[in-house]
């Protein structure tokens, strides 16, 4: 489905409910009645082109965001990415930590194993934090500086010098190890968790909830990095080109 401004947001959520956390990041909560996207964006003061780009990229892994790329400023994008980070760090990760602890509590014969899994996830979450911090402290400020520089006419010498030292092409995507850890965690649960011990029905249920949450997180992060690769990087490359062209 290609999401466009004349569609009702309610229809879209019926079609793909995993978009709910995404619209939440735009301060849209459930209960939006029959309003179409255009109207909602207008009342909430949301950049329509940007909203559609994010929804489509998230919804359809084949979607290639091109048409609206120029229609919104980088500030808007960075604001979105930061909100997403907050929701991972403050909500998703603690939720999963809690689920592992609950599983440990319910377990009769796997407490030691779950301690190991809990430590493993701690390692994952601190690595994840470091990754996010680098984006927030290095990449995003750089992007905002570029945009600021573009809004003023003339040649920006200091900016050009900074671009000599750093450019968005240095922005290595080191999501890999983080993705692999999440994959490993899923496999530890699926293949090896309680191979030889009896556990209660509640334990089974809690394992399923944990596993489901890991799949959800995995999907979220995959779409998040697609947004960075397909929207942030090209957008910044374009800005770098414009600044260089002035000199």
């Amino acid at each position, binding site marked *: 489905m290609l999401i466009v401004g004349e569609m009702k947001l309610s229809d879209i959520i019926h079609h793909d409910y995993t978009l709910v956390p995404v619209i939440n990041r735009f301060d849209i909560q459930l209960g939006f009645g029959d309003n179409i996207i255009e109207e909602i964006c207008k009342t909430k003061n949301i950049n329509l082109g940007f909203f559609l780009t994010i929804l489509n990229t998230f919804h359809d892994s*084949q979607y290639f965001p091109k048409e609206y790329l120029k229609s919104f400023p980088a500030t808007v994008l960075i604001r979105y990415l930061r909100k997403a980070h907050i929701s991972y760090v403050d909500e998703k990760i603690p939720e999963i930590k809690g689920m592992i602890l609950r599983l440990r509590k319910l377990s009769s014969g796997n407490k030691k*194993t779950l301690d190991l899994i809990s*430590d493993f996830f701690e390692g994952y979450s601190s690595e994840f934090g470091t990754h996010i911090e680098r984006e927030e402290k290095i990449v995003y400020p750089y992007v905002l500086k570029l945009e600021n520089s573009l809004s003023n006419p003339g040649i920006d010498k200091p900016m050009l010098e900074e671009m000599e030292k750093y450019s968005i092409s240095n922005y290595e995507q080191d999501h890999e190890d983080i993705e692999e*850890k999440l*994959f490993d965690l899923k*496999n*530890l649960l699926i293949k090896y968790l309680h191979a030889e011990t009896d556990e209660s029905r509640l334990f089974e249920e809690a394992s399923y909830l944990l596993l489901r949450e890991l799949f959800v997180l995995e999907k979220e992060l995959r779409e998040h990095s697609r947004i960075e690769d397909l929207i942030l990087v090209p957008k910044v490359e374009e800005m770098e080109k414009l600044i260089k062209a002035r000199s």
Partner: protein
Amino acid sequence: MAGVTNIILIESSFLLRSGIESLVQEIPGMLIIDVFDGSEKNLFEKIKKKKPDLVIINPDSLVSSFIGFISKLQDEPEIEIIGLLKIDCPENISSRFKHKLIVSENKHVLLDSLRKICGSDGPCKKNDQGPISKREIIVLKEVVKGLTNQEVADKLFISIHTVMTHRKNITKKLGIKTVSGLMVYSLMNNIVDIKEMG
């Protein structure tokens, strides 16, 4: 599911791409990790970096020289190649592929050929069946203690190349990629003791 067969698809037509994707989804253990439309710059390098087990390629999608590209791919011993071909594909092109999928075939024929190429006795799954061997366990023990490949090689009097092969097979068999994941596995299965860990 033992190891996962990672696939890269090179196909410019959206309809064919979606078709192949839905086909692959029906085979557990096969995963499309990336899709290219054939017009990308440095396509070979991009593919190599992703370390796929299998590349499915439609020669019609390639913008650059087909022969050069295919021979480079064929020089990679870890990668199997499948040609996605039309029934009337000229002999000089189709003969370049050991494995073929003919686009006009019906679903079950296609599924069958894919399974034969990548199934349990196909070339893609040479080393990832069964439990890990005694030798692999010895290597695993050292790896989870935090030793580098070189250190493991020196300690066990084997070449670094052998260590890397063992590691690759361990990861494929267990489905665990990171050292810290392997550590959890080893502790869970009493392969190492917590006291042995640094």
